[in-house]
């Protein structure tokens, strides 16, 4: 056995643990195969000892080849830079498993997803309402991610059951799915008593497009293009996580120059989104000048992206095995001088915001997501860091960021101001990283792309996008076509954080709280 430490650790909490197998699939990935009876206890033990929330949990339909369903639950071991996958087989007749969500809330949404997409029941889960296949339009009994799903069979449709808050003076305010601004669709249902919000229920899934099913049967290049359209403001992070999974499976090494160029684009994506959100936060307190200023900086970065790659959103840039666009000497010069201007303007923007007393008053202590709540929900990425949870794949996993002595942004209070400060810190850190990476682009390293071989297998690809960790689980057949692709955008876990952060705040501050999270509708809805 390759990772006795993990098994010993699990045994301290679960003495009778007897894994069926333990396999180190890749240097950064360990799979622990367990029998269904041990799944719950093993997952809970790992959750405590690592400690890690459920980073993703999903099913695969292997009834065709092996007459079973498989469920994988993935945790992250930040200290060891490793992903721990707990895997179990489930018989194909009357499939079910014991719910983890009662004891570990971060499993909740994933279990609901497994139930609606595969019809595998998480027994004991108190909330089996559907997330994406809305009851009003999708007949019950249709499980689209099962391999034998071809067309919709008739069945009952019904209404979604919202949690109701009742009592004297309690009002319900429904908002959406179509909002007032230029933004994705979602339904928010506020319950208020007087001004403060006492409950916020989110109903999302409006932009569900069936992406995971669309991945199936595609070769890598087509699937990579699709990954760029999962969440349009994170094209690069998604395509990078996808490419890394595919590279692990096919055993393709990435040329060092391509790694640095990928690093540069990943940080550029972070920068344009962070400055966009900083402007959005200013706008939502009615401070329009810095907001306009921020949108000019965002435009400058988008134009820089265009100058470097021909795409403002860095589409068609990534490839499995490297990158399709080089940053040559001429581009490098233009790039560094633009970056200098962007940095200078950004400093000015931050000065304007931080020196405005009324602005700081609005963002300070507004929309606080406390550390305990964030931990229980399994919040990830930027939102977690603002609430005092040290987590950033760039810091804990080996790679060019770690080599560049990446500094992680951290705040404690989890309010709008904390999330703003994390963004400001990360924007500046991104500038530093880009300069460092650009310095590493030396002449003579001409290769930017290795051709991937064709090999079957499965692997987890990951990267720290600007919202947080973007995870892609791929399973590929021998002929190189995708059999299963599970996409986990950080928004999926973090949306719940928003519904806790707004409690006690007033509805007029909701846009501000919402913008400070700035979560993706399409990334969540898939």
């Amino acid at each position, binding site marked *: 056995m390759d990772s006795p430490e993990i098994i010993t650790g699990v045994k301290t909490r679960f003495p009778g643990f007897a894994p069926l197998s333990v396999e180190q699939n890749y240097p950064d990935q360990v799979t622990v195969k367990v029998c269904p009876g041990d799944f719950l206890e093993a997952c809970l033990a790992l959750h405590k000892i690592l400690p890690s929330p459920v980073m993703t949990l999903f099913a695969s339909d292997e009834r065709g080849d092996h007459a079973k369903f498989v469920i994988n639950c993935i945790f992250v071991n930040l200290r060891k830079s490793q992903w721990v996958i707990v895997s179990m087989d489930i018989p194909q007749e009357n499939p079910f498993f014991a719910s983890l969500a009662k004891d570990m809330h971060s499993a909740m949404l994933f279990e609901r997803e497994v139930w609606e997409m595969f019809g595998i029941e998480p027994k004991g889960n108190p909330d089996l309402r559907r997330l994406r296949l809305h009851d009003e339009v999708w007949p019950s009994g249709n499980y689209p991610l099962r391999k034998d799903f071809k067309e919709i069979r008739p069945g009952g449709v019904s209404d979604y059951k919202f949690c109701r808050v009742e009592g004297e003076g309690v009002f319900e305010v429904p908002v959406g799915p179509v909002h007032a601004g230029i933004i994705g669709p979602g339904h928010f249902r506020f319950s208020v008593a007087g001004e403060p919000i006492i409950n916020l229920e989110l109903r999302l899934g409006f*932009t569900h497009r069936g*992406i995971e099913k669309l991945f199936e049967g595609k070769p890598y290049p087509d699937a990579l293009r699709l990954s760029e359209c999962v969440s*349009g*403001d994170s094209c690069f992070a998604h395509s990078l996580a996808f490419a890394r999974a595919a590279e692990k499976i096919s055993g393709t090494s990435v040329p060092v120059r391509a790694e640095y160029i990928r690093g540069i684009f990943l940080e550029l994506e972070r920068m344009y989104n962070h400055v966009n959100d900083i402007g959005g936060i200013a706008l939502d307190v009615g401070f329009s000048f810095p907001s306009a200023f921020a949108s000019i900086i965002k435009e400058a970065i988008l134009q820089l992206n265009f100058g470097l790659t021909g795409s403002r959103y860095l589409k068609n840039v990534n490839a499995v095995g490297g990158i399709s666009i080089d940053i040559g000497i001429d581009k490098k010069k233009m790039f560094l001088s633009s970056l200098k201007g962007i940095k200078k303007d950004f400093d000015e923007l931050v000065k304007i915001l931080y020196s405005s007393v009324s602005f700081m008053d609005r963002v300070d202590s507004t929309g606080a997501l406390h550390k305990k709540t964030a931990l229980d929900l399994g919040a990830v990425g930027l939102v977690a860091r603002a609430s005092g949870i040290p987590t950033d794949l760039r810091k804990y996993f080996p790679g060019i960021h770690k080599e560049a002595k990446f500094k992680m942004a951290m705040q404690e209070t989890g309010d709008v101001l904390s999330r703003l400060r994390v963004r400001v810190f990360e924007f500046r850190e991104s500038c530093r990283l880009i300069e460092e990476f650009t310095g590493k682009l030396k002449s003579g390293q001409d290769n930017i792309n290795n051709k991937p071989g064709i090999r079957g297998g499965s692997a987890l690809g990951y990267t720290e996008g600007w919202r947080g960790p973007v995870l892609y689980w791929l399973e590929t057949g021998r002929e190189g076509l995708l059999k299963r692709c599970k996409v986990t955008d950080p928004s999926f876990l973090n949306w719940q954080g928003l519904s806790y952060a707004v409690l006690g705040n007033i509805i007029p501050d909701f846009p501000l709280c919402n913008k400070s999270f700035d979560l993706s509708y399409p990334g969540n809805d898939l």
Partner: protein
Amino acid sequence: MTRLIEPGLSEEACQAGSELKALIRKKFGRSLHIRQVDTGSCGACESEIISANNPIYDLQRFGISFVASPRHADALLVTGPVSKNMLIALNETYKAMPEPKFVITVGDCAQDGGLFKGSYYTCGAVKDIVPVALHIPGCPAAPMDIIKALLGFYKRRLS
């Protein structure tokens, strides 16, 4: 502030925009009001539509503004393939608009489903659900493309 943006771009936007403004005056009296609905877009088209309103392109100075309610809108701008979950909302939004009204689609997936064509959860092209007068292609459509496409549309309509 540092001069970040290529000066030519602002001028290009200004020229196309002024022409557009004159046409909108003629056709709509005062200005053109647009209500945007996302029916399953990845968000990149939204980002570009917001960019078209930034100080560089500043659509509003040419008399085009995005409004919060379909009741205030002359045009409906739709992005994304139509997710089954958005079908009702799209129809209701269109119905809520006063006549005369028209629909614009932005982005490749709004035209025919794009990469999402054939999914179990998309309803096909926007034009099969509501009548579409103008399509602006792109993945996503850049702000300048949006301004130019609107100008071209008015020119065709008024000539």
